[in-house]
C-alpha cells in the first residue's frame, strides 16, 4: 500500500503524460483504488493566473542567485500563523525585532493564504539583504503550511502565543486571547506559562460570532469598537451561548434599542462569556494582556477593563503574537540545530505546485482519511493515519 500510494504520481506522469499542474487539479485518474473524493488542490487557480515570475523552471535549488553571498546577509526568521479566519506573518531579525508584518484573511484556503502572506512579507524586506534561516508555523493549518514551506518549527498556537507575549511583556501574568474560532486564557508566573484553558465545544463569543453579528447589523466588524465606545448605556445581551445571544439581539433590535447600545452590549457579552467559560476558575492577575484579532475591537477591550476592574494591555502587534512567538521558537531551533538549512526562498511557495489529496486508507476497517501533501507531484508529508499501516512514505 505504501509503495502504491507513493508511486502513483509517477505512474500518472508516465501513463498520461500530463504535466504537473493538470495532474494536481484532476483527481487522480481511474487507477486509484483509494477513493480520493476531494482533491482540494487549492493552489492551482492562483498559480495559473500569475505564473511564477522569477524562476520559471520550478527547480529545487532555491535562490541559486542569492545563496552565494549569504555571508553578508542579515539572518532573519519567518513566523506564520494560519488561523481559521485570518493568517498572520512576521519576519524578525536576529535581535528579535519585527521587520515585516502582515495580516490578511484566510478565506478558507490556508495554502493560498500562506502563499500570499509570504509574498507580502517578501515585498516588505530587501530580499538581497536578508537570509531566512528558519521558518516556524502555527495556527490550525500549521501542519499543512509547515509542510509547504519546510518549516523548522511547527508549534501549536497556545505555546506560540505564550512565548511571544512573555518575550514582549516579561512581567505579564494573564494572557487573554480571542481569535476567530478559538479563545484561550494563559496564566503566567515568572515568565512561564503555568496554566491554560481553551474554549471547548462551541465558538461562542469569538471573532466569528462578532463578525456574523456585524453582518446582521450591517456594520463592518472593524468599526465595531468605535461604535461601541459611543454608547452611553449598553444593552443587556445574554452571554451564555451564541444562540441565546443572537435571539436576544434580534429581539432588542426589533424593540428599538439604539444600534450603538446593542453593539456595546455585544462587546460586553463577548467579554462576560469569555470570563464565564474560558476564564472560569482561573485567577486573573494583573498585568493582563489581551490579544488575538478581537483585541483590535476597542469595545471588547473596554468591556474587559470594566469587568475585570483592572487595566488590560493591548499590544499594537497583539494580533501577530502567534506568528511572532513561533518565529522566536524558530530562532531557538535554528540556534540549536546550527546554521545548516539555508533553503527558504520567498518565491518557493509560488513556484512550486502544492496539492493535497485525501486518501481513504483501505488497510483496515477504520478507513482513516489520510491527507497527503504533494509538492510538484512528489509527496512531502502525510497525516491522518491512526496506525502504522497507514503510514505513507515521503520522498522529501
Amino acid at each position, binding site marked *: 500500500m505504501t509503495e502504491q500510494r507513493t508511486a502513483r504520481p509517477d505512474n500518472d506522469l508516465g501513463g498520461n503524460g500530463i504535466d504537473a499542474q493538470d495532474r494536481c487539479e484532476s483527481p487522480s485518474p481511474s487507477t486509484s483504488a483509494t477513493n480520493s473524493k476531494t482533491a482540494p488542490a487549492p493552489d492551482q487557480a492562483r498559480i495559473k493566473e500569475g505564473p511564477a515570475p522569477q524562476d520559471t523552471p520550478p527547480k529545487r535549488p532555491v535562490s541559486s542567485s542569492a545563496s552565494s553571498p549569504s555571508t553578508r546577509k542579515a539572518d532573519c526568521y519567518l513566523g506564520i500563523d494560519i488561523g481559521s479566519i485570518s493568517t498572520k506573518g512576521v519576519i524578525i531579525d536576529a535581535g528579535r525585532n519585527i521587520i515585516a508584518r502582515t495580516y490578511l484573511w484566510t478565506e478558507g484556503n490556508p495554502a493560498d493564504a500562506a502563499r500570499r502572506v509570504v509574498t507580502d512579507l517578501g515585498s516588505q524586506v530587501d530580499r538581497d539583504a536578508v537570509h531566512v534561516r528558519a521558518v516556524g508555523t502555527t495556527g490550525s493549518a500549521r501542519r499543512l503550511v509547515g509542510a509547504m514551506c519546510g518549516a523548522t518549527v511547527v508549534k501549536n498556537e*497556545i505555546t506560540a502565543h505564550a512565548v511571544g507575549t512573555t518575550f514582549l511583556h516579561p512581567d505579564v501574568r494573564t494572557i487573554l486571547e480571542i481569535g476567530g474560532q478559538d479563545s484561550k486564557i494563559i496564566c503566567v508566573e515568572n515568565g512561564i*506559562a*503555568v496554566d491554560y484553558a481553551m474554549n471547548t*465545544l462551541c465558538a461562542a463569543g469569538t471573532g466569528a460570532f462578532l463578525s456574523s453579528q456585524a453582518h446582521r447589523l450591517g456594520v463592518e466588524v472593524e468599526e465595531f469598537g468605535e461604535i461601541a465606545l459611543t454608547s452611553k448605556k449598553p444593552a443587556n445581551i445574554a452571554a451564555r451561548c451564541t444562540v441565546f445571544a443572537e435571539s436576544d439581539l434580534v429581539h432588542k433590535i426589533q424593540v428599538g434599542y439604539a444600534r450603538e447600545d446593542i453593539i456595546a452590549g455585544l462587546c460586553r457579552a463577548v467579554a462576560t462569556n469569555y470570563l464565564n467559560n474560558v476564564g472560569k*476558575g482561573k485567577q486573573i492577575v494583573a498585568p493582563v494582556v489581551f490579544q488575538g484579532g478581537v483585541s483590535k475591537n476597542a469595545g471588547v477591550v473596554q468591556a474587559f477593563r470594566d469587568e475585570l476592574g483592572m487595566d488590560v494591555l493591548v499590544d499594537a502587534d497583539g494580533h501577530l503574537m502567534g506568528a511572532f512567538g513561533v518565529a522566536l521558537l524558530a530562532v531557538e531551533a535554528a540556534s540549536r540545530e546550527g546554521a545548516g538549512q539555508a533553503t527558504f526562498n520567498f518565491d518557493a511557495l509560488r513556484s512550486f505546485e502544492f496539492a493535497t489529496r485525501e486518501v481513504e486508507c483501505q488497510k483496515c476497517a477504520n478507513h482513516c482519511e489520510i491527507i497527503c501533501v504533494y509538492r510538484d507531484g512528489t509527496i512531502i508529508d502525510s497525516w491522518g493515519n491512526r496506525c502504522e499501516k497507514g503510514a505513507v512514505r515521503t520522498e522529501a
Partner: protein
Amino acid sequence: MPQTTDRMPEPASNRTPSPATAHTAEPEPISASGRAAEHPRERVDPLRTVGDARSTDEVRGARVVLGDGGRGPFKLLPSRPRRERSAKRDRHARTRVAFFRYSYYDIAFKFFVEHVLDADFVALPKPTRRTIELGSRHSSDMVCAPFKHILGDYIEALELGADVLVQFAGPCRLGYYGELQESILRDMGYEFEMLNFATVTGKPLTEYISICKKKVNPNVSVPHGARNMLAVFKMIECLDEANDFYLANAGFEVEPGSFERAREAYFADMREATCERDIAEAQRRGLDALRALPVRKPAQPVRVGIVGEYFTAADPTSNLDLERKLLAMGVELHRSLTMTNRNLRHNERNLRASIADYVTYNMGPTSSLTIASALRYAQEGFDGVVHVKSSGCTPEVDCVPVLQRIGRDTGMPLLYLSYDSQTSDTGLDTRLEAFYDMLAMKKEKTR
C-alpha cells in the same frame, strides 16, 4: 437457603411419614428444648436476650443454638436420586455472549464468559469509525458518548451473531443504559437476551446466579463459576498492573514501538489463559518482557496523571488515543482510573477521607476517585493532571470546580478534556501539545 427454611415446618407438622424423614426433620424445633433438659440453666427464652431488663442475670452468656452443634449441618430431606440430566442439557446450544468494548478488559470479559458462564465469547474486532457512527445514529444526541460507543459495539456484536449482550450496573446514568439499549436494539429488530446486571444490583448473590442461568446457561456451575470469578478479578488486577508499567515507561522506549509490541504480545498471551496458573504465568512472562525493554528515562521526567470518567478515561477509542499521544511526547503517565482501582479495591470511605478538605459527600460514581487521585498526584509532585470526561457527564462536571481549587492550592496545572462522538483529533492534539510544552518549559526553567 430460603428454600430450605421454607420447607422445614412442613415435615415437622405432619410427622407421620417414614422414620427417616421424621428423624431428619426433627431437630430444629426440638433440639433447643432437648438441650435445655440436659443443661437446665441454659434454657433460653428467645424473646428475652441480653438487653432485656427482666432476665439479665439468668441469660448472661447464653447463646441461641440452632442445630445440635458438633455434628454439623443436618439434612432436612433425603437427597433425591439424581435425574438424568443429559437430555435436558442437550436441549441448549451454547449461547454466544458479547460484551461491549472497554479498553483491554475484553480479555477478562472473555475469561468470564468462557469460564464463569461457560458459554462462547463473541470477540469483537477493533472498533472503527463505523462503530461510533452506528451508535450515534441510533441514540439520542444528548446522551453521553459511552452510550453511543456501547450501542455501536452491541450492534456489531449482534451482526456477528451474539445471543446475549452483557451490560454492567453503573452508579450513574449507566445504570439505566442497559434497559434503554435493549429497547433500542429490539426496536431495530434484533432478537437477543440482555444480561443486564443493573437489574439485580444490591440483591443477593443468588439473584446474580439465577439471572446468569436464565439468560445464558442453565447449567452454570456455581462452585466452579465462583472460583473462576476470583480468577477474573485476579486477571483484571494483572492487566492493570502490566498496563501501569507500560504507561509509566513506554514514553521513554529506546526502540520505537517496542513497548506497544510487548504489551500486545502480553495481551495475546493473557487471552489464551484458561486457569489461574495460566494467568500468573502469563503475567510473569509479560512483566519480564516489559521490564527487559531498554528505556532512556531522564532523572526527572515530566509526569502526568490521568483522572476522570469511568469509560472515557480508560478506553482509548473513546479518548482518541490520549495515552499514546502523551506517551509519544515522552511523558511518564499514571492513570488512577482502572477497574482494579474503581471496582476491586474501591474504598469510598478512605478516598473521601483523603479529600476531606475539599469534599464532604459522595458526588457520584467516580468523583471521589477522580478528586482523590488528582490531589494525590499533586502531593506527589506530578507536573500536571489531565481530567477526561465525556461531554455532559454530570458527576465529572461537578468535579471540575473542586479540581480547579486543587489546582489553585497546589499550583499544579490541570487540563480538562470533554469528549463526544467526534473522530477528529486536531483540537485534542493542539491542547495536548500545548499542555506538554507548558509542563516541559516549566520544568526546565524551575530546574
